């Protein structure tokens, strides 16, 4: 089933992000507050009220500091809505994009004609994180002192550098470019330009990962609303149609007992999205990548097919990203 141009995003909301609430006296908001705030902003943007969501779809995303099993139901309770379909997003940082396709599918199936997708987290003001680690992590990583994603992405980065010859300077160029883009975004938390020198001087956390390679935890909430074309046409904003989408979980390049960690599921999901949209790389004017860790930006550019594996690496990446440093 193709989802091409069968649904449209009609509104979105983004709260400011902050890192407050961990120290005495700092303003403190909790997850549910960011959730309600982001949902309200999305509804306002679309020209809808929460009453419009009764009998419609809700997609609520689990976040690492807040992953209780009944989260979609709790989110509906927090918002005071009665969804006809509720979806949970358990794909971490990929959840919003994953749920975009799921929401489009349930709209296209005629089950609902609106879906609110919402994510919120408050790691600084709600202490501790979920203890529900995946069993492999709990049994075969944590006892060896594996420090979560910093460590695992260091494995990927060290192997990538070994195979490609990509250097810290190349990764630095990507970091500088990504930060430059943040300076253009009024909602970004870090808006001061980063220099290559500053990148290289940032402290090593888990070699070769340094501070400015790392994902930055923050409090905040985000939401979007997706609608059927008929419903979208009644709303105040020009609809933004979903043309292509793809998802691949637990992808494995090669045998699963020693898969190639430098090839991600995006190779397959990206290709599926291009095919569904019936567009080529030349048609893409804006590329929104997941920038959790700097080396992961590089893997996405490669796996989406914007350049070959190991082809001029950092220079290519910086050029594709739009600014040479």
């Amino acid at each position, binding site marked *: 089933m193709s989802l091409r141009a069968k649904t449209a995003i009609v509104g979105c909301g983004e709260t400011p992000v902050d890192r407050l609430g961990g120290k005495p006296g700092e303003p403190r908001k909790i997850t549910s507050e960011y959730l309600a705030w982001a949902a309200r902003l999305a509804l306002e943007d679309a020209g809808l009220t929460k009453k419009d969501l009764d009998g419609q779809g809700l997609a609520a995303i689990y976040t690492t500091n807040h992953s209780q099993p009944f989260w979609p139901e709790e989110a509906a309770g927090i918002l005071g809505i009665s969804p006809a379909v509720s979806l949970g997003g358990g794909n971490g940082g990929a959840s919003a994009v994953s749920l975009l396709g799921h929401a489009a599918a349930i709209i296209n199936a005629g089950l609902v004609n609106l879906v609110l997708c919402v994510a919120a987290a408050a790691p600084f003001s709600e202490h*501790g*994180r979920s*203890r529900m680690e995946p*069993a*492999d992590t*709990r*049994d*075969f*990583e*944590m*006892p*060896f*002192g*594996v*420090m*979560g994603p*910093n*460590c695992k992405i*260091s*494995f*990927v980065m*060290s*192997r990538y550098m*070994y195979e490609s010859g990509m250097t810290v300077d190349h990764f630095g160029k990507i970091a500088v470019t990504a930060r430059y883009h943040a300076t253009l975004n009024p909602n970004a938390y870090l808006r001061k330009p980063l220099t290559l020198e500053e990148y290289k001087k940032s*402290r*090593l*956390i*888990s*070699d*070769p*990962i340094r501070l400015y390679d790392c994902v930055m935890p923050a409090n905040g909430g985000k939401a979007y609303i997706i609608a059927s074309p008929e419903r979208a046409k009644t709303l105040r904003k020009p609809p933004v149609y979903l043309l292509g989408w793809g998802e691949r979980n637990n992808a494995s390049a090669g*045998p*699963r*007992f*020693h898969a190639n*960690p430098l090839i991600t599921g995006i190779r397959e999901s990206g290709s599926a999205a291009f095919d569904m949209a019936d567009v080529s790389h030349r048609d893409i004017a804006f590329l929104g990548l997941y920038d959790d860790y700097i080396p992961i930006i590089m893997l996405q550019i490669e796996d989406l097919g914007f350049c070959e594996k190991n082809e001029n690496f950092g220079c290519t990446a910086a050029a594709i990203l739009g600014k040479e440093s």
Partner: protein
Amino acid sequence: MAEASKEIPKPLPQITPITQPFWEAAASRKLVMQRCSDCRSWVWCPRPACVECGSEGLQWAPVSGRGTVFAFTVIREVVGRALRGFEKDIPYITAWIDLEEGPRICSNVVQCPVEKVVIGMAVEVVFEEAGQGIFLPKFKPIR
């Protein structure tokens, strides 16, 4: 002050019906992994069925314990309360080790200065007692 000097325990694996044979073998200083008796694939981490062909005919088989460093990192900071027990070990190496038989296992490279560890380095298993009868398979350079 007494609070600060208190030893923070490192997390131990939970023993499940699927992983029990692995930890029992480790306690007798043997490294074993599951192998599919139908398609002959190695399976790691432990699973209820073969991740290649789906067969439930998995058997535990010994592996040599020799391998090479596929990728590694030097841990320089602890992240999260649960792992604070590792603070005293910093800096230390965590790595993906490719065993001779093929499976890639996440572990530590030990008995080696951190600056000497390189990708491709030949290593062999060594078991370290972690408490409560658990022995962790770690890897040291083959000299």
